[in-house]
C-alpha cells in the first residue's frame, strides 16, 4: 500500500502564547513547535500498516521552512520519504485553501490511502482530512482508532460519542482521519535519526500548485477568552494553599 500521511507542525502544547501586533495570530518567536498529536498517531498507524502489509509511507506537510524539523522527525520514525509544500502564508488561508494545496500535492502520487490526524491542536478546525477526501473524490472515515487491511479495502474502527464505536468497511483508495490513542507511539531510534538525513524530502513551492482563490472563512482577530466563572485564586505555598482549599471545601462548598 502506498500511504501518504499529512502532518502539521503546531505550537507545543503548553506553549505560553502572546497575541502579535496584527491581532490575528500569536507571537511566533515565543513558541516551540512540535508534530500535531493526532497526526503523530496517523503516522504511527501508517508505519504499522506498512510493517504488516508492505508498501511505502510518504509524509506530507505544508508550512514555512521550520516544518522541515517535524518532517525529519517523521522520517526518523520510519517514513520513507517526504513532500514539503513550502508556504509562508497559510495563516491567511481557510481549511479549504490548505486542503486544496495538500490535494494538489497528493494527486500526482496516486496513493492507496491518505491518513491524517482528526484535528489540529492549534486551529482545531478538524476538517482537513474530510475536505481532502471530497477534493480527491474518494471515500473517507473519520475519528478512526484502528485500521485493518481486508481483501480489497479496509475495515476501520470509528469512535462515536460517549463510549460507543462502530466498524466501517471502506474501499480503497480512501482518506482516514485518525483519533489519538489507538496505538502506542514509537520513538525515533538513533539509527532512524541517522537514516532520516539521507531520505528524500521534496520541496514543492505552494505558488506552483493549483491553489485556492480567496478564503471563504476569514479570521478577523484573536483575543484572550473571557472567564466563564469568577475564580477565587488561592495563594500561598503548597501547604497553605491546600489548607485554605480544604477549608473552602468544608465551609463554602460543603462537601466535607
Amino acid at each position, binding site marked *: 500500500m502506498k500511504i501518504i500521511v499529512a502532518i502539521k507542525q503546531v505550537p507545543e502544547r503548553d506553549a505560553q502564547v502572546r497575541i502579535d501586533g496584527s491581532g490575528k495570530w500569536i507571537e511566533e518567536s515565543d513558541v516551540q513547535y512540535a508534530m500535531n498529536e493526532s497526526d503523530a498517531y496517523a503516522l504511527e498507524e501508517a508505519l504499522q500498516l506498512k510493517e504488516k502489509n508492505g508498501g511505502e509511507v510518504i509524509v506530507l506537510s505544508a508550512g514555512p521552512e521550520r516544518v522541515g524539523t517535524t518532517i525529519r522527525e517523521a522520517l526518523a520514525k520510519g517514513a520513507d520519504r517526504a513532500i514539503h509544500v513550502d508556504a509562508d502564508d497559510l495563516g491567511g488561508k481557510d481549511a479549504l485553501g490548505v486542503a486544496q494545496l495538500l490535494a494538489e500535492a497528493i494527486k500526482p502520487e496516486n496513493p492507496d490511502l491518505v491518513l491524517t490526524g482528526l484535528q489540529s491542536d492549534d486551529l482545531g478546525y478538524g476538517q482537513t482530512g474530510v475536505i481532502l477526501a471530497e477534493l480527491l473524490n474518494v471515500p473517507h472515515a473519520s475519528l478512526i482508532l484502528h485500521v485493518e487491511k481486508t481483501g480489497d479495502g479496509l475495515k476501520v474502527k470509528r469512535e462515536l460519542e460517549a463510549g460507543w464505536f462502530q466498524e466501517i468497511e471502506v474501499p480503497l483508495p480512501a482518506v482516514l482521519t485518525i483519533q489519538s490513542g489507538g496505538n502506542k507511539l514509537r520513538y525515533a531510534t538513533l539509527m532512524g535519526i541517522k537514516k532520516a538525513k539521507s531520505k528524500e524530502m521534496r520541496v514543492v513551492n505552494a505558488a506552483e500548485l493549483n491553489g485556492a482563490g480567496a478564503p471563504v472563512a476569514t479570521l*478577523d482577530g484573536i483575543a484572550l477568552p473571557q472567564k466563564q466563572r469568577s475564580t477565587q485564586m488561592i495563594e500561598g505555598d*503548597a501547604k497553605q494553599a491546600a489548607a485554605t482549599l480544604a477549608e473552602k471545601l468544608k465551609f463554602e462548598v460543603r462537601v466535607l
Partner: protein
Amino acid sequence: MSGVWVVLEDRDGRVSRVSWEALAAGQALAAKAGLALHAAVVGAATEPLAKEASAKSVAKVARIEHALLERYTSDGYTAALHQFLASEKPEYVVFPHTYQVRDFAPALAARMNEVLISDVVGIDDGPTFKRQLMQGRLVGSYRHAGDGPCLISVQAGAFRAGAVEAGSAEVTTFAPTIEASQIRTKPGEPFRGSAQTVDLASAPMIVSVGRGIKEAENLPLVEELAGALGAELAASRPICDNGWLPMERQVGSSGQTVSPKLYLAIGISGAIQHLVGMKGSQCIVAINKDPDAPIFEVADYGIVGDLFEVVPALTEAIKAAKG
C-alpha cells in the same frame, strides 16, 4: 434565499439535546440577520423527529427523507443535504458540532466551495462567529466571505437548549435523489466499548487527573486524594490513551459527561474536548502549574502550583478537616 436552516440530529429516536442548542444558535442568528428560522431532519423515517421539531417556534420543518439515509453515511448525508441546500439556497446552515457532523459537514461545504466554521461558541453582530483556538487558550472571531450559504457548527453547551419557544410549524418533505452506488462505505452497527462498571455521571465528587501527572507511577498521589474525599477517580483523554486508567474513567466529548457537586481537576489544562464533559459541575477546583491554562476559566477555585506538592498537602488537609 430562504433564511437560516438548522439541521437537527436524532439520538435514540428523539431530537438530541445538542440539536436544540443548535436551534437556539440558529434563532440568535436569524434574529440578528432578520431572517426566518427553519429546521431540517434527515433520515429514512423522519416523521417523529419532524413532529418534535414542528412543535417549536420555527417557520418550516423539512423532512429530508430517503431509504438510503436509514443509517448514517457521509456519502448519503452529503448528497442529500447538498441537493436540499441547492434548492433552498439559505443564507445560513447551522449544525450541532457532533462527531457525525464533523464527518460530513466539511465535505458538504467543500462541495459548494464553502468552508464550515466549526465548533462555534458565540455569535456576535456582523455576524462574526467566535471559536476557540490553541486548545481554548485563545478565541478567534470569524467572518463568512463566500457567496453561497454560510455553514457553522455549534459547540455543545454554548447555547441554551430551551431557548426556542413552542410553536407550530408547517412540515414539508424533500426527497433527494441518491443511488446505492453513491454510498461507498459500509457502516456497521454501533457497539459499546466495554462494559461500563463505573458510573461517573452519578458520582457526587470526582477527582480527575490529566497530563500533569507525568507518569503512571504517580497516580497513587491522586488516588489517595480521591480516597480521602470519598470521590470517584476520573481522567482526561491522554491518561486513558496511555492506558494508565481504563477508558470508562474518561471525562469529555469521547468519554462521559459529568456534573458532580465537586470536580477537582488536577494537572488538566482544560482542552475543549475535556471541558464539554465537565463544565456543568456545580463546583470546579483546578490545580495546575500553568496560570494561563484554560481550565481556570471554568474553575470556581484555583491553585497555581506544582501538583506534586499541592496534592499530598491537600490530602492531608482534607483528612484533618474531616477530623
